[in-house]
């Protein structure tokens, strides 16, 4: 039996961390991850009436997040923080504060991802999100075989870059 379609708010709540992780990677000053996050939320909300659920909400949201972030990075779309600010979305730093070692390791991973080309970056993000190749193919528009071939090479590049950094 088909499950009833979730509301937009439920989809957003369930996927907010995924979106934020992608936005953190693509945000380049002066654009903040929060600006990109709000941009993704806005575009997801606009697309939601047309979302029929065939591809799964995760796949659907990954497509929107990657398209929005890449457009911002390539400056195809100007992200103006004053214009995108939605007061109803609040970002609060976690009370314990960021763990320094963890943050350093994240920065190392971020640097390695940044050293890849744009196309490989998007693939590696989806790989780190633990999407199966079939879903990565749906998000990117490549064939599953093509994704597999590319991922083999990208994983090697990523591992070669990160291994010395993580010690």
């Amino acid at each position: 039996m088909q499950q009833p379609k979730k509301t937009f708010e439920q989809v957003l709540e369930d996927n907010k961390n995924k979106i934020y992780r992608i936005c953190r990677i693509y945000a380049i000053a002066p654009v903040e991850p929060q600006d990109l996050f709000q941009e993704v939320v806005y575009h997801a909300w606009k697309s939601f009436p047309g979302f029929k659920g065939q591809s799964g909400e995760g796949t659907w949201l990954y497509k929107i997040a990657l398209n929005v972030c890449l457009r911002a990075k390539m400056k195809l779309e100007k992200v103006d923080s004053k214009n995108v600010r939605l007061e109803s979305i609040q970002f609060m730093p976690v009370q314990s504060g960021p763990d320094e070692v963890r943050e350093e390791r994240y920065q190392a991973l971020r640097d390695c991802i940044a050293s890849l080309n744009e196309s490989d970056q998007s693939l590696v993000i989806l790989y780190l999100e633990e999407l199966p190749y079939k879903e990565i193919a749906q998000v990117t528009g490549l064939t599953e075989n093509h994704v597999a071939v590319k991922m083999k090479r990208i994983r090697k590049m990523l591992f070669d870059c990160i291994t010395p950094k993580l010690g």
Partner: protein
Amino acid sequence: MLEKELKDIWKGSSEIERIKFDLSRLMIDLNARMNRIEKVIRKRDFREIVGALIVLPIFGYLAYEIPYPITRIASLLTVVWALYVIYKFRSVQKRRIRENLSLPFKQQLENQKTNMLDQHQLLNTVLYWYVLPPYILNLVFVWSLGYPSNIEWSGSLINHLPMDTSNKIGFTIALAVFNAFIVWLNKRAVKKTLNPLIADIERVQQQLDSTD
């Protein structure tokens, strides 16, 4: 082992901030933002055709008021050109592929490129559809003023139009300089803005298609 470690680092990267939604206000905020953006788009679309809209009544009136036949024809043809420009802008606006960001990455890039190439074509050919036709018509308009000389005209407009040869030469040069500036502006926009964006899109498309 490394793979799992990397995925853990990645998953933990969203734990630096807690994201909270005020659900009672979210829909109001999103609707307000959409209305704001649509207003900006409507204004931009209107701005594109406003020049041509201004030309219509002015040259319509000139065609009615000025008795010289060739000047009249030039005025009427300028009205036709302005209508064509409005039609052209409207059709480009309609042809623009509406953004659908829930499409796969590859298809979205293709759509972006199609829109950019459309803009490229529009700006790059501005000389032939936006600059030369009205320039030629304006020259015909100006140089035919006062001919044939047996037509008597003493309308109030006569003081505002270049009726003698030196004024006509001045007008011709000023208009040529202005039009050259418009062509230069558009070529510059193509070179500085559109070409790099198209090249960027093509670069990412090649990266996606390659298996290296």
